[in-house]
């Protein structure tokens, strides 16, 4: 009860010179149901207070009530844009606890799907970022390409958006026969569209004016705020779990960690965060091509599926490089078939917490761009 009073008290302290603007939860560019309480001095943002929890779906409570395989559908619904990537650290953690080695083919398929999903996620991120700037057409071009990726996902798993595909010890189903050709054609299409997007949106002068030198996030602040993924890489720090703490078979592939260089403005501005995502799509294409080349097509993806998933008593913190950054699961097992506790370190939750820090002193229109450049998914912020 005491909290309510506190908030009310804050409202009564409003300076009459300034305007308090309530952005969201229903607002076209809050990327979901985020609510920002913005204090404006004219059009200059003096304070931002994010209010989250409008999509709090009690994931951690559900995880305690479910058996281990039943948790996976709920994990899908956390960061619903990159569901494949979400499942991975969880599945990996339980495999580590139970000591399961997954077959080679499974690892390759997981890598390919995770990278495809990374592309799909970055496509949405860039598309909605452009939409925030008012560019509607690139949004649709990117969504058109994403549709091809979803078709491949659907052919393999049966789901278009939420897959429940990575199972402990293997995969839910094998990939289809024309998998390799499909994926390679997607890679080709993604590269073609990216060329267009670069001309149409990313290097458009108006767009550059909007995003360069806006929302500058220095690397040390980013680390202190626990940011990860493109947000911290945009600040020029090559922190990528795929290279720093290689999991699965990422050490077999040759790819670069993209960082922001301050190409048109300062290091760590919105443009850098966006261009990191843009170039990461190309790196993902490279990984996919290598993986497709090395991947064995024969072999069973379900042979190592354990009949009963009952990890021994213990706890583990597993993490993986999600498209948005480090996604971690702190899994505590009590030896039964239900987890004692699963705490998820939502990437967007941590990344969003830096927003008040980097948006002060910019214009209101810039606040929208900064929020877009952080690329949050409210399902993961609120869980």
């Amino acid at each position, binding site marked *: 009860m005491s909290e309510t009073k506190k908030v009310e008290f804050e409202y009564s302290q409003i300076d009459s010179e300034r305007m308090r603007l309530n952005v969201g939860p229903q607002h076209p560019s809050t990327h979901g149901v985020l609510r920002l309480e913005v204090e404006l001095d004219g059009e200059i943002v003096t304070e931002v207070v994010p209010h989250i929890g409008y999509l709090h779906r009690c994931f951690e409570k559900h995880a305690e009530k479910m058996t281990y395989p039943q948790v996976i559908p709920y994990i899908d619904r956390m960061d619903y844009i990159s569901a494949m990537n979400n499942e991975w650290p969880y599945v990996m953690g339980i495999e580590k606890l139970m000591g399961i080695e997954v077959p080679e083919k499974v690892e390759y398929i997981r890598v390919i799907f995770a990278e495809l999903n990374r592309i799909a996620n970055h496509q949405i991120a860039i598309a909605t970022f452009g939409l925030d700037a008012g560019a509607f057409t690139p949004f649709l071009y990117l969504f058109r390409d994403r*549709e091809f990726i979803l*078709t491949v996902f659907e052919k393999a798993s049966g789901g278009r958006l939420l897959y429940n595909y990575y199972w402990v010890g293997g995969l839910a189903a094998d990939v289809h026969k024309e998998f390799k050709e499909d994926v390679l054609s997607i890679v080709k299409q993604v590269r073609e569209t990216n060329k267009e997007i670069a*001309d149409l949106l990313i290097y458009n002068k108006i767009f550059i004016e909007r995003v360069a030198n806006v929302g500058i996030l220095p690397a040390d602040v980013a680390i202190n705020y626990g940011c990860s993924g493109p947000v911290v890489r945009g600040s020029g720090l090559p922190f990528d779990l795929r290279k720093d703490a290689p999991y699965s078979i990422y050490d077999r592939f040759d790819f670069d960690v993209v960082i922001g260089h301050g190409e048109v403005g300062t290091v760590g501005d919105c443009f850098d965060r966006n261009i990191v995502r843009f170039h990461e799509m190309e790196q993902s294409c490279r990984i996919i091509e290598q993986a497709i080349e090395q991947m064995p097509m024969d072999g069973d993806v379900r042979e190592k599926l354990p009949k009963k998933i009952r990890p021994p008593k213990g706890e583990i913190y597993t993490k993986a490089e999600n498209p948005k950054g480090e996604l971690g699961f702190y899994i505590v097992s009590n030896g039964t078939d239900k987890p004692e506790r699963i705490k998820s370190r939502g990437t967007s939750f941590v990344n969003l917490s830096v927003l008040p820090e980097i948006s002060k002193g910019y214009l209101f229109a810039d606040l929208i761009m900064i929020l877009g450049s952080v690329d949050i998914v409210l399902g993961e912020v609120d869980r």
Partner: protein
Amino acid sequence: MKKYINDIWLGIYTVLLGMKITIVHLFAKNVTVQYPNKHPLEKASGDKMPMNARNRIFVDMELCNGCNGCARACPVNCITVETLKVVPGDAPPLKNGERRGLWVPVYTLDFAKCCFCGLCIDPCPTEAIKMTTEFEYSAYDRKDLFYKFSTMTDEEIKQKKELLANFQAEKAKKEAEAKKAADAAKAAAEPPKSESGELKIDNG
């Protein structure tokens, strides 16, 4: 000054570049698939809905043996299965030739709750439950999304219940009789047994 002119030039150039791209797309072939006129299953082979797409669940009651595995696997608890034991000799075998052990008078699935994760498909031993490609079943009322799969009519259920009750009563009766008989036999055999026991003790 150089930057000023360069900025103006870049502004005009990139705008023209963008306009070139959009005008090319204006005359490009569109990718829209007109849904009600063209069902996604009939699409060209490229982006057709695959047959393993996870949409409405179908339960073949002639295959279901009432093992409750799907209900247990469901994370959402949207499947309810109630079973009745089968009286020997009463039930025809399942479609796949296996012996039917249980009647399933109640099998409901609430599609307003289902999360279409596909976890219920795996544990089914007879492949009775499966996901279909059917997705056109929106409703004006939420109750219409509550599906009852069991094919048994109320009468049948009543009949089966009676049969089972009769059978159980009979069985109980038989058991009682058997017990009685055994008791009787025991009783008949008891005195000598006890005698023999005594004898045994005596012997011992």
